[in-house]
């Protein structure tokens, strides 16, 4: 099939953990933007609907060594072997070849939750309850995002409704492409400290490009090979140690010094930077 694609992009994010204050504006902005319902009180954090969820990271030390950081976690929009897309039995989730955005079509979803079992980031959420809104509140729904019914999976789609609106505006002005500043997800817009950066990962002209190729950048569970498009930035050694490539919680403090851990960690360093070995030798 010929592709009349004029503009292929690979949308991604860089989130600066060192700047994040854990205020939660991104979570609320996301829920408001995407008409995310609020499940009743029994829901708790295990049955909630938080397309973006800020986790509190702690180095588990008492004062004065105690350190806290915040990690906003959203769908990582995996670019390779996308775990959820490959397992959905009926194409209810899909990766857009033009943008790299992983979408979820709730009307197609049968609620089998296989994609949730497949997602290592726990970034997919099931609507356990019928969405309930007080009378009249549907009048202030975001008209660009369709609400979900009970019994389906939902997740972050980089505020795709905003992209559609931006494309529509561009179309009305006779443009086929949108400018970089025309499409920004709600979480980014809400972040008071500018911790979230968004853009085309393939465009060297964008600030994002430098950020994700910088020293401070890494990705969660990078070695799973799913090529997530969310990058995290941190200079704090304990944060990097904690998050860097899937050392399980039991190994947060490499004090145990088991040789296999060291080997694995060494491997992980190599995986990220193949020239590290050379440098070490020289």
């Amino acid at each position, binding site marked *: 099939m010929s592709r009349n694609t004029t503009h292929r992009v690979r949308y991604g994010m860089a989130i600066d953990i060192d700047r994040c204050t854990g205020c939660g504006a991104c*979570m609320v902005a996301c829920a408001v933007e995407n008409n995310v319902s609020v499940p009743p009180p029994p829901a708790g954090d295990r049955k909630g609907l938080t397309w973006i969820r800020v986790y509190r990271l702690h180095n588990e030390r008492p004062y004065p060594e105690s*350190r806290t950081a915040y990690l906003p976690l959203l769908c990582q929009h995996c670019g390779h072997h996308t775990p959820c897309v490959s397992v959905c039995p009926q194409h209810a989730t899909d990766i857009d070849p033009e943008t790299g955005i992983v979408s979820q079509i709730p*009307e197609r979803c049968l609620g089998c939750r296989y994609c949730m079992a497949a997602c290592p980031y726990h970034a997919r959420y099931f609507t356990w309850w019928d969405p309930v809104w007080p009378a009249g509140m549907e009048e202030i729904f975001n008209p660009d995002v*369709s609400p979900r019914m009970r019994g389906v999976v939902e997740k972050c789609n980089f505020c795709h409704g905003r992209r559609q609106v931006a494309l529509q505006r561009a179309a009305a002005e006779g443009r086929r492409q949108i400018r970089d500043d025309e499409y920004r997800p709600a979480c980014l817009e*809400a972040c008071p400290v500018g911790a979230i950066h968004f853009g085309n990962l393939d465009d060297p002209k964008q600030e994002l490009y430098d950020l994700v190729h910088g020293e401070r950048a890494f990705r969660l569970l990078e070695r799973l090979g799913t090529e997530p498009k969310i990058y995290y930035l941190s200079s704090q050694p304990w944060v990097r140690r904690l998050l860097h490539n899937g050392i399980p919680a039991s190994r947060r403090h490499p004090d145990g010094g088991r040789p296999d851990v060291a080997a694995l960690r060494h491997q992980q360093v190599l995986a990220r930077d193949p020239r590290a070995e050379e440098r070490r030798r020289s």
Partner: protein
Amino acid sequence: MSTGWRRRDFLTVFGGGMAGIALSPLPWKLLDDAAIWTQNWSWLPRLPRGEISTRYGRCTICPAGCGLRADIVNGQAFRLTGLPNDPIGGGTLCPLGIAGHHLRYHPARLRGPVEGGRIEEGGTGRDADARSLPLDEAIARLAGWINELQDVGASQTIAILDARPGRLLSEIYRRFSASLGAHYIPARTGGFSSDVLHAMGSAPLPTLGIDLAGIRTLLSFGAPVLDDWGAPSCANQFDRYAGSAGEGTTSSAALLIQVETRPSATAQRAGLWLRNAPGSECALALGLAHVIVHEGLYDRTGTAGQLLDGDGDARPSSGDPLNQGAAVGSSALCGYRELLAHYPPEQTAQLTGISSATIRDVARRFATAGPAVAIPGQDPGGGPLDPQAQQAIWNLNLLTGALDRRRGFVSRRALPLPQRLADAPGGAVTSLSHVPDGSLRMLIVDGALPDHALPWELLTRKLARHGARLVSLSPFRSGLARHAALRIPAPAPLEFWEEVPTPWDAPTATLAIAAPLAEPPRGALHPSALLERIAKLLGMPSPGGDADYLMLLRERAAAVFLTARGHVHRGRDGRRVPLDDYDSAEAFWQELAAGGCWIDDADKTVARLGPARRAFLDPSQPTSWDQGIASAPSAAGYPLTLMPFGPRSMAGEEALPPVMAKLYRESHLRSSPEDVHVHPETARRAGVEDGLPAWVETPAGKRRFQVQTDPAVHPAVIHIATGPAPASFGDLPQEEYPAVLELLSPNEKGVWRMTPARLRPVEC
């Protein structure tokens, strides 16, 4: 057919029918429609369709008043975002503001006046137990009650509690209470308590602001500098001007030193976190002052130098505003030196739990790496610092000359009043602590969402034991309104013309106007209109000078326009436009109504703080300074200290948009008011377990909380958030959440930061 129908015939016809159906579109069409039906459940809400427009305005949920852009569909806002470069919000909104338009649909929202159902009478504070009544009847009822007290000459037993002082509405309250002879009580704002400032200066102080631009050291005694969602706190200014200096980041030159017992987000992210023993702020401030004075690091060219170096024998020149005070000063100064002598670093280290080396380092850094400013804590849930601690902190600023200069505490000009109100200014202001206990027979509580938590006991103390009536003007039935005998709801935020007066810490005056984004419900009445109608019923002069609120706002804008000073931050594009560029007051008003924010020029007059500068020379109650520790009133059997906390505008029991549940229930990002945070060791000793319920007992009572262990918590302390819990979108939950505010017993100074407490496991 003569033979009649046989079974085989039926089967044949049926077979033909089946073949026919298969050859018709019927099965496929029905299957398709059924598929569509299962994808469009009828109970799914339908999206609004209609023209989408944009409006600019201000958020009035908290006193900050961040600029906002509202996307509107069918006349209703569906998305609120910050205005770029907004001088207050800095381009974003806090979570509360982002969901502000949902408050209208809050399950605790009142749509009309309600009476009865209050907790004191065995009710639940919910509408179910209350009777709604027509607006006119409610107004007549309130007027009648006031009239009763007037008739017996007991007007002074009436008080109005203003949740958000500084507005034009506050002026109306003041004028109303003045003509009635009632008290006008402003709720506390951030920074130094007005009581403290009042006590320190013999004359009324001009308004204080903090100019943080370009400072290098900020010594914060528990102020939520980096984690308060509010824009007008130091947070945004500090973050914007000085850059956040979180550990491990490439920090700018500015250093935040946070003195705080609780591992708050600010403490965790501060450049230096000093975790002091609970209540030892005063001792620490004095200990730092000791080092500064002892090592001669104070500002020798400024006031401190004149006073300390001169050893009281300052040679006052005739033009010096200190002239008057110098004579009194000398004896008091000796008192201050004597006082400091009790706080050498080693002694202070014992009191505060901070090493003497650190105390020396911090004192030196504070005194030498200027500009440096010390600010007192203002945790919205924990309440103000002890007055003496505030005084000691004030003195630190005085020592380093951080008063009356740019990059320090400055005085600022007040916002001009509308002409008709300026001619006859409002009446006296009473501090809540100055209201005699048990004296109030009627308390009218303003409807704005309060900035800070207020323990219910602080109010009940002031109320007469019998027959006291509380009238709530809150748009919600939660919070203090649960105790109200009559509730006349004001419009919710974003539903009425409102003004955003100058934030407490702003270095210059500002004014912004919030245009309504939606219609208030029919039964809601703005307090200004309410007072106007009551005044009319009682035959009193109109508190608003016969003008409605919108007109007053316009007149205030006109009065600002007449000053011909300052500039406007335009809402739609964030550009700065000099006030002179507007050719009429109307054009200026239009700009303000479209999200603009007027900012005054800096006041170039110096030395306006005058008398307050002498504060440290005059420790008002020398006896209690010896202690240096504002300990919780000790009670046997309560080994721990309960320190409540809360985020600004979200401390207390007011309403949060239900979508905030994402931050509380659906993640553990924000502390739920149902959680008690303790050190794992403390929990172990008390025999309670992480994640399980436990009793928290104080002399005031006991309640159940969920234990959350956190190794960063001080082992002698338990922390509980005062804040509200977000409601569900449906009905309010049947059970009230455990409000820590009812466990607190404020001391005689109105301080409730620390309450003796103990932790008990819940018996199975």
